[in-house]
């Protein structure tokens, strides 16, 4: 049965009707003032974490970099048990952010925080 789904892959990839709601990266910006952190973060003024949103497709193609487990879980949801949820749309790659801030004693600190900005999405 799972094989039948795979055979359907070429035609599935050609249909773009639901592409708009598919899992993808969305832009989003928040200021440190909104987060209530502007009294100690000197730079930057705003932060663009981005976010992932959308439905994961019935057949997870390679572009989503989904692990094997996610593909199997998708099959289980589709063919075996609806109570098992389909994979979720989550960030796949991240990039860091550089922050200039003040510490409690007045020291100025430059620090790179890893994995702060979503760069791409995956279904897993």
């Amino acid at each position, binding site marked *: 049965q799972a094989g039948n789904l795979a055979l359907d892959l070429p035609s599935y990839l050609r249909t773009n009707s639901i592409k708009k709601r598919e899992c993808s990266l969305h832009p989003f910006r928040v200021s440190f003032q909104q987060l*209530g*952190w502007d*009294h100690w973060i000197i730079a930057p003024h705003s*932060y663009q974490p981005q976010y992932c949103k959308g439905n994961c497709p019935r057949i997870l193609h390679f572009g989503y970099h989904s692990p094997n487990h996610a593909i199997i879980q998708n099959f289980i949801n589709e063919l075996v048990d609806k109570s098992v949820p389909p994979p979720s749309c989550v960030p796949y790659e991240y990039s860091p952010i*550089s922050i200039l801030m*003040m*510490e409690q004693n007045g020291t*100025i600190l430059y620090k790179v925080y890893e994995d702060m900005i979503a760069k791409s999405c995956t279904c897993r």
Partner: protein
Amino acid sequence: QVGPASVGALSGAPSLPLIQVLLGKAPPKTRPQGRNRRIARGQPLRYMLNLYRSVADRHGRPRRNRKLATNTIRLVKPFAKARQPGAGPWLVWNLDYRLEIQPQVEHLVRATLVYSQTLSLAQGEFLCTAELLSSKDAIPRTTLSLTSPRVGKRNATAFSTKDSWVEMDLSTYLQPWVWAAQNSQVLHVRHACAYVGQPWGSIPDPGWEDAVSLNDPFLLLYLNDTLGGLWTRLGGLGSGEAPFEEKRLRRPVQTRQAR
């Protein structure tokens, strides 16, 4: 739309590693308005902002062509300061700096003492120098000595360039085993400035000592803050997330085998 969420409001979530780190660093918001900004100002702030802009864009994204070898740079200002009398034309201060390095989580890669060699103030032009002192007996460890300012060998254009920063590399003096053995993370520095903006012997405008005194040298500690250190600081592995993170670091996603 979400309302402002203070760090304090998140204090009930100790298992969130980033929040835990932020709680440890962020000054309380209850200070009088603007005080935090006043703490970080002047030359140190300008220096760090310049450094920041050179390595990151206005959104904080690291510039591709300019990467630092470390992920943390801490600017340390002196916590103690004493005027040293009787140094000829030089006005001399002894400064103490607290390193506050946590060896278990921070790896010191490089350390520099930053000072402005020439100061262009409203009171005139000043020549400054600095030297590192031995921690115990206050003997100079660097080769600098306080001789007469060489006014004649400097031309006017040299002084017209503002903020002629000098970075004195202290790495050889700040190896961890040195300050660990001394059981002290305090560094002693001598800072000296002389008035050279007018023909030698003239008297600068009143208040120049205070103005020069505002431009103390500062330390730059180039550190690598490790993820392992972060987990250690948080009290070990608790939620099961850490092993995943460690595994991910050992084998980055880019090297996964094709399915």
